[in-house]
């Protein structure tokens, strides 16, 4: 960049060097301006990246949502708000949004509570704990599609899970073909895949809780549950906020598991918004309507994140 580090222009003018009678001239490159420039220089690459790969596509998606785009025929016609009218009239959309909400709520509740439970259990100073931590974390680094395909085999009617249930005398359901069990299966597969990441974050937070607080509470006669509720939970609440934001946003973007396990079925029971959007754009060739659905998704994610950010004041405890 054009700032020369050796330049002395920003040095504060020394009193003796200013000729008498002339007001002291403030140099243009003050320290403040120089810092600002350096700051901008540092964020420019990232800013450019986001502009080209994030902001521009969002702007283009918005533009496409105003067009009817038939890929096969190569038509690209302006239709104004037609796609948005279609969005309001879409008979499948309530069902799709219901599936999406069910998936997100199920995933967030199961994932966070299991991650916290595992973190508390693995926060003990016992031999071999690192082995368990590694075990629970390992699915996070496994390829998502490979993980899902293996689960697809396990969940078949004559697959491993029902085989296991059969040995203890239980007739398992046809997991991926029942409307309720299909959604449950997709959620559980996703929870096991990613619970390790939240677990590690919780573990780090738990280890940051000062021990003397527990000791003081114990002296005051607080039981394990009270200590957990009144010391642990408030002190790790920033991490709970972080993990819940990440998990909710992630849950709204689930795609591969649905595509591999259920293709949105049975009926529309596992057709979440992202999968529906993919079907409309890439399978049914309604790219304009697909873009409209992605605007809806953007708004939902944005609204949920803002909501969580606002609500944090009520329950997140910051020490500083």
């Amino acid at each position: 960049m054009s700032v020369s580090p050796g330049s002395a222009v920003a040095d504060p003018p020394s009193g003796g060097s200013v000729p008498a009678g002339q007001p002291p001239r403030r140099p243009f490159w003050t320290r403040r301006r120089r810092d600002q420039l350096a700051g901008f220089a540092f964020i420019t690459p990232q800013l450019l990246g986001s502009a080209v790969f994030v902001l521009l596509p969002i702007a283009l998606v918005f533009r496409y949502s105003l067009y009817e785009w038939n890929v096969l025929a190569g038509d690209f016609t302006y239709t104004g708000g037609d796609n948005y009218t279609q969005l309001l009239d879409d008979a499948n959309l309530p069902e799709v949004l219901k599936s999406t909400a069910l998936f997100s709520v199920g995933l967030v509740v199961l994932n966070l509570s299991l991650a916290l439970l595992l973190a508390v259990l693995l926060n003990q100073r016992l031999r071999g704990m690192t082995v368990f931590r590694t075990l629970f974390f390992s699915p996070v680094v496994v390829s998502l599609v490979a993980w899902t395909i293996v689960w697809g085999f396990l969940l078949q009617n004559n697959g491993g899970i029902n085989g296991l249930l059969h040995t203890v005398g239980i007739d398992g359901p046809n997991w991926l073909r029942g409307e309720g069990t299909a959604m449950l299966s997709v959620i559980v597969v996703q929870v096991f895949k990613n619970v390790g990441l939240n677990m590690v974050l919780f573990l780090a937070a738990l280890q940051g809780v000062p021990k003397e607080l527990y000791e003081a509470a114990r002296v005051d006669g607080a039981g394990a549950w009270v200590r957990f509720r009144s010391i642990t939970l408030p002190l790790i609440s920033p991490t709970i906020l972080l993990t819940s934001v990440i998990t909710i946003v992630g849950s709204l973007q689930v795609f591969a598991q649905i595509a591999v396990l259920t293709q949105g079925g049975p009926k529309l029971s596992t057709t979440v918004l992202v999968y529906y959007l993919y079907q409309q754009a890439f399978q049914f060739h309604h790219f304009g309507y697909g873009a409209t659905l992605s605007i809806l998704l953007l708004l939902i994610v944005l609204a949920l994140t803002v909501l969580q950010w606002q609500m944090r004041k009520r329950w997140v405890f910051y020490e500083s």
Partner: protein
Amino acid sequence: MSIRRGLATAAAAMSATLVLAACGGEGSEGDKGPVSLRMTVWTSNKPHLKLFNEIAAEYLAAHPEVKEITFDPLPFDSYSTALTTQMTGGNAPDLAWVFETDAVDFVSSGALVPLDDTLKQTSGYQYEDLIPSTTKLWTRDDKLYAYPFSTSPFGVFVNRDLLKQAGRQTPDELIKAGTWDWSTVLAEGAEVHRSTGKAGIVIRDFEYKEWSNAATFWGGWKAEPWSADGKTCTFNSTPMVDAMTTLHKGIFEDKAMPGPGETADFFTGDAAMTISQISRAALLDGAKFEWDLVPLPAGPAGDYSVIGQAGVGVVKRGGHTKEAKDFLAYFTNPENSAKLAAYFPPPRESQLTAENLAKTNPLLKNEQLDSVVVNGVKKGVVKPGHAGQAELAQRVRAGLDPLWTPNANVKGVLDDLCKNISPLLEK
């Protein structure tokens, strides 16, 4: 780099992206110099690609205006999606294979260019040798939009060992006795499952999702998913309800077929019979059981046969339509069609004979080829397709889901299905 220059570069990059996005998909018909052609295919089978490349090499030697021809395999499962995504992204191929189920969409949308003028004018092409029943699906307003390079009938592959083990008659005996029909086949399948624990009969690739493959079953009842003009749903017509009732009973009561979420692979010996296309015979190379290939069993409405088809067309937005049409005329001329017949049953009357097919299908006997392939191609009904196929297929899949449960009300489910898809059909 100064900030001004940096910003200028960024602005240039952004406007270039905008321009690219705006013009994406436009071909460059005015290209000077030799062109490169690309054909998307869904086979990644080495012998197939080797043959294509040999034909292309011969063509290149005599055509300096084309410098390169590549065959670009896309995965079978997501082929149509990948192809249309390429077209959306401004990366349309010059030639593309098209599934029979997508035929209506591709032919009617204007995505492909008419071929008949080029093919008819190519010397030695023998256009009139093409069997009309094979070109019907790809023709609109008397113009041919894709060449039906593969017309592959469905037949029944049989594991004779497994049937004998279950103490049942083999299909060749049943055919001789005149009882090769669905009620016998379902009874045989049920008995195989009862006595050996293996699957009776599998409609391959159906899996309670790809319902168009069930046409190989309901064809025996002369049932159709919609009327010939495509406007009226006939899923709840009497023949279809009868067929589906029989199928439902076969699955859930007789257990002649593996149920939803159960898999059984015929080719590894896990099922007694499977309905599939003859191109699958290659999977039986080195099979550890005695097998046979027979025509589809008769239904209450008599004999029938079903064919799957694949066409190859020239994509308008690929840009080099003239060169691509010319290459296609070479690729499918009588001489090369005979070579391609090794893997893909040809649409040419003169080449579609059992003797001819036997030369390149060593695993199959003459009478198998004659009864299943030759007769199948000439009489067969193509698997169902419709405009807006992908969306329709998805709706039908969702609509049929309630049928694949033990206590389903068949007529009720099919009535609901028709209610659900009628708006799409009427479009």
